[in-house]
């Protein structure tokens, strides 16, 4: 093997704040050979991005490398003059950033931006640089690059922008490529395409790539070696297969165990890591994971473990584990038994939804019939003429039974959030009916509306935006009761304390403001707030997508438990099929405003009938190198069409491998594949039930709900 392209030895980076020092990265060693991809995995705050920025010499204000060395072949980068470093940056070492919208200059055309590094580093003429830019844009698979060169970043979709970012990074044929969360902001189908581009390029250009990500699935298939970082330290480094099958560090084990997987049994809870990562301004003396580790001993708390192990597989742990966690379930303790039986029956009861909603004689709790929601696109400053509309939700029909949990999956822009807002009654449908308990919320007024709102509550995606920053937790949790006029101040206070306990927060949280909590804790507060009014339905819009993996499983387990405990129905909206499958009895798949498939978790995962669902499942990165490396094809080609002017007939036809003429002409009706399973496709991947059931077409889905 050639000498490593990039070698980091014993690197320590600190960030000086006004009153404290963050020990962001400590004693990190890495090596990347030419043509190799090294995965660097860690949660937010683990120091993985700071490590990348240290290599580039682009640390934020107050940040500096305090020790160690970074070598690009034989050149030492630490302590290099800024001018020399500038020559290396963008030329020998290039970086791909996460957020393509803010990382591209909005006032320059993409052609100019790709050409810029070529002109800077190679002294190329305008013409030469543009030729090179065209070449690179072709290389990264930008469709019709010659025409797009003059486009500005806002004219491109997220996936295309990310391709442009990659083109900029590659324009000078760098020797080392740092990819910091290159696909995190993208949809799964687009993510698969971008990862494919990176794969191909690495093989063709022979660069050394450092792939920094929080997503185990993304690194699994793409890197030879993986480093796991926790709280500024590398805790384990091993070849990919070994890391996934024979990890030694408890953190790696817990991290992998806490990811909801599509193929796993949803009735089993996820492994979760309690607590939070340590505060890096005052890191603990011993092992930094000790406070959250099941196997921690006094030695762990007193002494920091060094990296040990064989040459290829190293880990920093005093009490290493052997391989992945095997989840065994603890027998109930006496104290928890009485309440527990209730839960058990709810979780394990064959989902009532599998049969038709009328099976138990009662009407469904929530019923959507041909719901349409369109947002007007206006023109003109004064009169605001309506020129067109964004078709956010088009003729969606579904029902949810009491106590059932329903999941909605889809990519961004598929209308799932709009549907959520329609269900909680924040928005009014432009057509069709949204009925809760047989009544339409948006037709009510005043006190009647206020009381009706108790039934449906919502949990939001962004834990930072969903809590009023000016209110203490006590007021936040009391607010629903104050609005609804429930109970005396004393009763309200008692209830607030109860709820706080239920979501696992200490009592001292009551007097604090939202900014004093971590993301996961805020999401717990938001969950508590949604529960205050004892709603019959809770709508959770991307409840965990803003959270770190280890925190995510805490919140998922909590949501699942509380939902069962309170006997609520829930609607979980997410782009992540695994999350939805873990939380839901039944799943609806949306594409561009339409519901394309409806079924139980197994219907969707094992017997997907719609080509979109099938492709979606295939593109989800699985944290398992064996599966990931076996994947050869990119699931879905192309970009999401505009919801302002969706394709005629079946909306998926522009990206569908099975599309034929009829797909453009006739909108496919919902067909039944089993009592619980329906999909809208002309050429389904499963055999539909006999014609009698399908004859009713699209209305059959709604009809089952009405009858």
């Amino acid at each position, binding site marked *: 093997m050639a000498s490593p392209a990039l070698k980091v030895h014993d690197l320590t980076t600190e960030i000086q704040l006004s009153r404290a020092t963050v020990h962001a990265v400590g004693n990190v060693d890495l090596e990347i050979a030419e043509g190799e991809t090294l995965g660097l995995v860690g949660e937010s705050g683990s120091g993985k991005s700071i490590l990348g920025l240290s290599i580039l010499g682009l640390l934020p204000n107050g940040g500096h490398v305090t020790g160690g060395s970074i070598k690009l072949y034989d050149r030492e980068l630490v302590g290099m003059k800024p001018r020399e470093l500038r020559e290396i940056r963008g030329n020998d070492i290039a970086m791909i950033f996460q957020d393509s919208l803010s990382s591209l200059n909005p006032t320059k055309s993409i052609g100019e931006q790709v050409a810029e590094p070529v002109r800077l580093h190679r002294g190329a003429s305008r013409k030469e640089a543009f030729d090179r830019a065209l070449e690179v844009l072709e290389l990264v698979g930008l469709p019709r690059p010659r025409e797009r060169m003059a486009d500005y970043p806002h004219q491109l979709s997220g996936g295309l922008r990310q391709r442009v970012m990659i083109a900029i990074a590659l324009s000078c044929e760098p020797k080392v490529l740092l990819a910091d969360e290159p696909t995190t902001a993208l949809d799964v189908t687009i993510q698969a395409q971008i990862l494919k581009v990176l794969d191909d390029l690495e093989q063709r250009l022979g660069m050394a790539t450092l792939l920094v990500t929080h997503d185990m699935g993304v690194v699994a298939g793409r890197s030879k070696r993986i480093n796991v970082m926790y709280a500024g330290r590398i805790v384990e480094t091993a070849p990919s297969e070994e890391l996934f099958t024979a990890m030694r560090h408890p953190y790696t084990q817990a991290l992998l165990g806490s990811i909801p997987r599509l193929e796993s049994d949803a009735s089993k809870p996820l492994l979760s890591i309690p607590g939070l990562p340590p505060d890096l301004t005052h890191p603990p003396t011993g092992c930094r994971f000790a406070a959250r580790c099941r196997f921690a001993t006094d030695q762990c708390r007193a002494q920091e473990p060094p990296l040990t192990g064989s040459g290829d597989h190293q880990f920093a742990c005093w009490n290493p584990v052997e391989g992945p966690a095997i989840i*065994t379930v*603890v027998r109930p303790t006496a104290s*928890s038994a009485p309440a527990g039986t209730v*839960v058990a*029956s709810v979780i394990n009861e064959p989902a009532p939804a599998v049969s038709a909603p009328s099976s138990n004689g009662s009407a469904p709790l929530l019923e959507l019939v041909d719901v349409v929601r369109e947002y007007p696109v206006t023109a003109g400053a004064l009169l605001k003429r309506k020129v067109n509309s964004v078709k956010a939700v088009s003729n969606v029909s579904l029902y949810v039974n009491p106590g059932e949990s329903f999941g909605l999956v889809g990519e961004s822009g598929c209308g799932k959030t709009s549907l959520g807002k329609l269900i909680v009654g924040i928005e009014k449908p432009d057509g069709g009916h949204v009925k809760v308990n047989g009544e339409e919320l948006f037709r009510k007024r005043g006190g009647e509306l206020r009381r009706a709102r108790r039934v449906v509550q919502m949990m939001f995606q962004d834990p930072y935006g969903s809590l*009023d920053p000016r209110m203490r937790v006590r007021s936040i949790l009391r607010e629903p009761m104050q609005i609804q006029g429930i109970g005396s101040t004393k009763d309200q206070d008692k209830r607030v304390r109860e709820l706080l306990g239920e979501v696992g927060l200490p009592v001292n949280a009551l007097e604090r403001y939202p900014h004093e909590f971590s993301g996961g804790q805020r999401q717990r507060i938001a969950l508590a707030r949604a529960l205050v009014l004892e709603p019959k339905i809770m709508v959770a819009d991307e409840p965990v997508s803003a959270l770190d993996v280890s925190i995510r499983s805490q919140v998922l387990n909590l949501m699942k438990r509380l939902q069962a405990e309170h006997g609520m129905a829930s609607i979980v909206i997410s782009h992540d099929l695994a999350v939805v499958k873990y939380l839901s009895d039944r799943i609806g798949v949306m594409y561009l405003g339409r519901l394309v498939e409806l079924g139980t978790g197994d219907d969707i995962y094992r017997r997907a009938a719609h080509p979109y669902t099938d492709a979606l499942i295939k593109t989800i990165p699985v944290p398992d190198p064996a599966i990931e490396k076996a994947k050869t094809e990119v699931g879905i080609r192309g970009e999401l069409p505009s919801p302002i002017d969706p394709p005629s007939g079946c909306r998926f036809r522009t990206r569908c491998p099975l599309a034929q003429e009829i797909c453009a002409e006739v909108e496919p009706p919902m067909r039944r594949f089993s009592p619980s399973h329906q999909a809208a496709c002309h050429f389904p991947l499963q055999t539909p039930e006999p014609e009698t059931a399908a004859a009713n077409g699209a209305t059959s889905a709604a009809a089952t709900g009405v009858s």
Partner: protein
Amino acid sequence: MAEPQDISAVGFGEDLGQGVALIPAPSGGLHQLVPDAGDVYATSSGWRLAWREYASNKLALIALALLILVVLFCFVGPIFYHSNQTLSNPLDQTQPPSAAHLLGTDENGFDELGRLMLGGQSALEIGAYASLVAIVIGTLYGAIAGLVGGVLDAVLMRFVDVLLSIPFLIVVLVLATKYSGTVLDISLVLGIFSWLVPSRLVRGEVLTLRTRDFVIAAQTMGANRRRVIFRHLIPNAMSVTIVNITFLIADSILALALLGFIGFGLQFPNTSWGDMLGNAQTYVTNGEWWLVYPVGGLLVIVVLCFNIIGDALRDAVDVRLRRR
């Protein structure tokens, strides 16, 4: 497939992390080192952070200290420095500074230092009242326009545009002549014509706030518009308004000085720094400097202080916003 009972244990273990234990733990032994959701670290409150940022700005601290001195001078000063400000005394006309009159006397024989205090009182009072009136009207107006949106918003904001295009001073002059020049009258007149800018600022803030999830959450709980405005929108727009108040005070003090200077200010026995400057302009060429420089200097200092404080507050509040 796990048995139901097993699941229940998982669901109801003391916490989620340990519920899924690898090793069966004895009952009650499930409590671990950290609370389930992790510790809540006490961090500084937003306001404390803002104050820290403010205090790191030396100029702003000096401005604040100076301003406090001026306030003390104007309101506490008269207790220690007695001077006749009600009966004119022709015998004492335009005396230069002396032991009896530290800053001399004006053309009516009033002690100039005492008059500075009196003028300062009216300036600061009018600044405070006028900005209060302006901020209350402006905040409510802007919040309603921003939250309700649509046609009402368009109508309300076009009305603001129209008012902004009317020369403010002319209207104030007309009104000032119609009403007796008491502190309250002038405050109201100034206040009623300076809420326009704050209303625009608050509307802008509310437009971004109203799409925030916590406002939507309040709506799903059944909160009505009044509650949303008073409990959520206005408190969160407070940082904008607080910064704006300081600028409003400075503007009101200047406007008052201008009114006084051209002779439409407060009526006797009240006086303002503008009146004093206006009266003194005829003497400035005669070498009677004590009638011009102290009052002019004080006016500049006070207005400058408010502007510096406003700038520093804006930066400080930004820090707080970044933290959230």
